[in-house]
């Protein structure tokens, strides 16, 4: 049994560019599961030989292995592949509804051509987000994780083969909306960007420190709504400083466009 989704085999599905279908909902709902079995962390190479032999000369066998070793190894493979091609890969994370896809739609329309932007979308189900990105004129691959709560490096490797981003381009990997689980899984990205929206409240960095600790950049989104919500930007910045002293904060609004030139410049500077 697949322990990730509880089905007979893995529930991960990958849709490449041109495979999204009409209205962003082209997969069957019968849960038929005729897919291949290659989700991670690391079932793809299950058949490989052990790295070295162990003599069972006692009842206890030392393993001394990082539990995430396999994902980390696959992430390093992704990173090497991306780096060799000069591709900037960004792992974009937030809770559901913080505005990841809306930000990417506007980024695709306003700066997509200049950045050579491509996107890997991660969601439990549907190709809705990929269709939105495609409609904004950007090449996109959709990963459906089934019951999975995060993307892992093997899923991203499959997304990379489906998408095949060009050398020197920017690839944004929109993770599954979740402020907890994605924090632990290296995908091979060069930078981690976490969205924190003003409608969620200012206490998110201190409530979800694991996620914000790893952030290179925090985008404070929906700032056009600041006059209408009770959000203390000073407290948000102070708390973030406690969790991640090096993280930069950038206030943006994908509705009005406020702050977006700085976001585009941030991406552009890192591709050189």
């Amino acid at each position, binding site marked *: *049994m697949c*322990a*990730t989704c509880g089905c007979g085999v893995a529930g991960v599905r990958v849709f490449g560019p041109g495979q999204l279908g009409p209205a962003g909902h082209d997969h069957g709902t019968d849960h038929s599961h005729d897919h291949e079995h290659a989700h991670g*962390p*690391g*079932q793809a190479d*299950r058949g*490989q030989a*052990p*790295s070295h032999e*162990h003599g*069972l000369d006692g*009842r*206890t*066998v*030392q*393993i*001394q*292995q*990082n*539990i*995430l*070793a*396999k*994902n980390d190894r696959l992430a390093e493979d992704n990173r090497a592949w991306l780096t060799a091609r000069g591709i900037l890969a960004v792992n974009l994370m937030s809770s559901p509804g913080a505005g990841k896809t809306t930000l990417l739609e506007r980024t695709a329309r306003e700066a997509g051509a200049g950045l050579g932007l491509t996107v890997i979308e991660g969601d439990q189900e549907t190709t809705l987000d990929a269709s939105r990105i495609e409609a904004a004129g950007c090449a996109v691959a959709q990963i459906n994780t089934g019951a*999975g*709560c*995060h993307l*892992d490096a093997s899923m991203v490797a499959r997304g990379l083969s489906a998408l095949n981003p060009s050398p020197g381009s920017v690839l944004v990997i929109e993770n599954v909306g979740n402020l*907890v*689980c994605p*924090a*632990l*899984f290296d995908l091979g990205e060069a930078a981690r960007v976490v969205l924190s929206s003003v409608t969620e409240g200012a206490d998110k960095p*201190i409530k979800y*420190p*694991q996620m914000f600790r790893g952030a290179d950049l925090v985008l404070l989104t929906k700032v056009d709504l600041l006059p209408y919500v009770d959000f203390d930007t000073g407290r948000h910045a102070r708390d973030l*400083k*406690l*969790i991640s*002293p*090096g993280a930069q904060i950038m206030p943006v609004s994908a509705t009005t466009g406020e702050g977006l030139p700085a976001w585009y410049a941030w991406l552009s500077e890192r591709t050189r």
Partner: protein
Amino acid sequence: MHELAITEGVVQAVTERLPGTPIACVHLEIGVMSGVVADSVRFCFDLVTEGTTLEGARLDIIQPAARCRCRDCGAEFEPDGMIALCDCGSADVAVLAGQELRIRSVEVV
């Protein structure tokens, strides 16, 4: 619930290292700042080991405490919870211990 994938990773690592060997006990190290909840791993373990050589195995988890060093004043301290803040007021700290996420050893049947 990333602990399900984490626990699955444990089973895969053990079955790859010791194919076909029935396992009596698995010893893990899950630091208190690792971002993984030991109780959730215990909860997932029976489900994930079903039908494998680890089915019925005992799960032993040790949880190393967190230890940090302040990059500003050099003091070493044990942080209170997930937020590592030095008494000097600095949050710029190196985590020395508490982020472990390791399979230490297994006992074979």
